[in-house]
């Protein structure tokens, strides 16, 4: 039971510091005991808890796991008053007796039956256990009886005080080991811990490990992330205002106020509403934040349309879709992606260099099964995402479109307009250029094609010059 080793250290420290003595309980002398109050003081001193609450909790843990036990009132939670406790003899600690055979339990119960019934009589649960054991162990019952008589005889030779203390220790031990029906068993281990197996690494495993290590030594991945800690601190700090545990959300945290209105705000799928300001602000943190949000994706797509490179985001979304699609749809989806985005003269050919394109087409043609086809677009996916992240995203953040959505979100509440209206209304000062004919779109999961088709295909291009220098080809149309 390795998890208990740490609590055993605490139990030892408490035991070393404990001053046990005979206490008076009404008119009975209770030898070898310590009060709850004293115990707390000991734990505070030796267990390094933060406060009394933690000390008290540690004391309950010692109690539950059988490192101490109440002398008089059993089954009560730990009390830090004059309640009397006894520290368990290390012989009876859980680690000393990992396996407790039924035979020993039977001897113990039989011993009690042989003694004064008023003092040592069995409880209902114990009678049941005894009867069951008598059945199961019938073949060796003579041995059990003999053993219990022998132990009793030895016990009688002890001093009275020792007898009383030992009896209580033994009883406490079995109470922890065989908790009454319905009572919690604090010593039980989960199935996976008792059954777990450690296998020896095989040769193949070692070779993989060495390849990995050699690769790490060669590439030094940590250099890329120099000041990784600093990066992480900045990342977390930027998002603190969005963290409901750190800053109460508006209007309120539903779990605290019992008001579900926080959840009834524009949800991820109802894109007609204006997203909240916080949500829009997050898009400005990184491209990952932007594409994680379905509305963010749509706004980015609108922006890319204005730059004639919306095929990039559509391609990327299509690949996210195929990566997690059911097996039987893989070939069909792969073919559609190839036709739409990669093939010679495809309607929305994405701008990947010839090497990446060849690699991808090679992967597609070589894919032996759906599993390989699923990930065949990996090279192009990475290329296009990098392109969006490094090239389009910085422009997106500075764009009129993003600013307009942000403004709309900030004014949210004064005017209940969809973000689309805002984006397109702010642009009306410049006259819309001739709109392209709506072309067949690659279908997206949970798409909102209805609204998309109503979109003007281009926004004013005065403020958003079409970039060709960056290698982003304009839409073929």
């Amino acid at each position: 039971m390795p998890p208990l080793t740490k609590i055993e250290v605490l139990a030892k420290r408490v035991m070393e510091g404990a001053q046990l003595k005979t206490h008076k309980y009404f008119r009975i002398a209770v030898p070898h005991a310590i009060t709850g109050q004293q115990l707390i003081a000991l734990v505070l001193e030796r267990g390094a808890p933060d406060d009394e609450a933690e000390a008290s909790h540690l004391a309950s843990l010692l109690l539950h796991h059988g490192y101490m036990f109440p002398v008089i009132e059993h089954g009560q939670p730990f009390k830090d008053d004059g309640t009397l406790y006894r520290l368990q003899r290390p012989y009876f600690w859980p680690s000393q007796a990992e396996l407790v055979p039924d035979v020993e339990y039977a001897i113990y119960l039989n011993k009690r039956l042989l003694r004064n019934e008023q003092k040592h009589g069995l409880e209902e649960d114990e009678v049941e256990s005894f009867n069951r054991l008598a059945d199961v162990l019938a073949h060796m019952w003579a041995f059990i009886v003999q053993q219990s008589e022998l132990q009793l005889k030895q016990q009688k030779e002890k001093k009275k005080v020792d007898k009383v203390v030992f009896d209580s220790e033994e009883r406490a031990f079995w109470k922890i080991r065989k908790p009454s029906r319905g009572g919690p068993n604090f010593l039980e281990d989960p199935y996976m811990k008792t059954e777990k197996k450690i296998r020896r690494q095989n040769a193949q495993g070692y070779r993989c490990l060495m390849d990995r290590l050699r690769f790490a030594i060669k590439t030094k991945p940590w250099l890329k992330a120099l000041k990784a800690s600093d990066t992480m601190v900045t990342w977390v700090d930027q998002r603190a205002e969005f963290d409901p545990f750190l800053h109460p959300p508006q209007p309120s945290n539903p779990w605290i106020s019992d008001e579900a209105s926080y959840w009834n705000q524009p949800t991820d799928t109802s894109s007609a509403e204006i997203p909240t300001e916080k949500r829009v602000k997050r898009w400005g943190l990184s491209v990952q934040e932007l594409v994680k949000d379905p509305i963010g994706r749509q706004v980015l797509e609108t922006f890319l349309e204005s730059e004639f490179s919306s095929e990039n985001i559509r391609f990327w979304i299509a690949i996210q879709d195929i990566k997690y699609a059911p097996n039987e749809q893989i070939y069909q989806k792969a073919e559609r992606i190839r036709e739409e985005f990669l093939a010679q003269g495809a309607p929305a050919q994405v701008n990947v260099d010839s090497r990446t394109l060849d690699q991808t087409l090679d992967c597609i043609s070589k894919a032996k099964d759906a599993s390989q086809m699923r990930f065949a677009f990996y090279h192009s996916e990475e290329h296009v995402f990098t392109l969006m992240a490094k090239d389009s995203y910085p422009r997106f953040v500075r764009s009129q479109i993003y600013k307009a959505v942000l403004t709309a979100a900030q004014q949210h509440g004064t005017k209940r307009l969809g973000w689309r209206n805002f984006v397109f209304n702010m642009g009306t000062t410049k006259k819309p250029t001739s709109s392209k004919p709506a072309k067949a779109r690659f279908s997206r999961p949970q798409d909102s094609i209805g609204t998309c088709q109503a979109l003007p295909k281009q926004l004013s291009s005065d403020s958003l010059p079409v970039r060709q220098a960056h290698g982003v080809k304009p839409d073929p149309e």
Partner: protein
Amino acid sequence: MSGNAGESSSSSKMVENSQPTTTEKGSEYLEQLANEAEELRKKLDQERHKLNDIPIQQAAERLDVMGILGVKQRRILKGHVGKVLCMDWSLDKRHIVSSSQDGKVIVWDGFTTNKEHALTMPTTWVMACAFSPSSQMIACGGLDNKCSVVPLSFEDDIIQKKRQVATHTSYMSCCTFLRSDNLILTGSGDSTCAIWDVESGQLIQNFHGHTGDVFAIDVPKCDTGNTFISAGADKHSLVWDIRSGQCVQSFEGHEADINTVRFHPNGDAFATGSDDATCRLFDLRADRQVCVYEKESILFPVNGVDFSLSGRILFAGYGDYRVGVWDSLKCVRHSVLYGHENRISCLRTSPDGTAVCSASWDCTIRIWA
């Protein structure tokens, strides 16, 4: 292999077990390989050491200390009669699925605390359960070595619609849907992980490399990654490439079994919780352990960890019935949540970060906010 009876071990979908090939390769050869690997590891450690990265506590000095959070128990879900072993949030941010040792799986509306579905699995120790992203389906399994999916509907008896998707050669310890209702990722006591096609039950990819039972897996929250992490009885956390099935990074440091693992919301780091009573933070890009969350007064295993939305807070559910609230950057314990009356088996932050949920052997599930 596993101690349970009556499970066929001849399924065609079976994940092969990585057994040491002692026949062709003698133990001497293995020892030689082990030594070589050890040498490489030392060299790598030296190389890493040359780097003057700032410790995270120092980098976090510029941040304010976290104020009082006022986190309290807000809901208690009662209904299980056995130890609750696992729970998962629905993406609708209020429904919860939980599974218990007596074979029951319950779907709750956590907000109203109503039970919406309850089903009995033909096995005890249902160690894993998961909500599908669409919230239309749940997956669960455990000692039956299988992962079954059940579509949720109020019309018929849903248990009739239960379908087996995955089969391992030992108990299934953890499962999660992979970004869609179509794929499921499982981890098992047979020391492998695997991705399965939900519809057909076909094995899509399996992952060999652990030398002990896998206890936990996690998938990054952002879309861009193609990796997942797993950890378990061999004290290692392994990072896998979903596409190739290859292990691409491994992390060590824990002194005992790793019971739980969760990605940091930034996707570049992850936290683990172990039987050694510590949580640790590992950075994937820096390729190393960043922080240990430990305390002299913490004596029991960590069975569940998760981050708040920003990653600032690390919640840890312990075998000592408590939830520890850690400042993940300053690496100090901020506060403690008392309430459970037996060990915590699982802990997860809700998808929108408004609450954290813990499941316990005291048969209850509690929601804190």
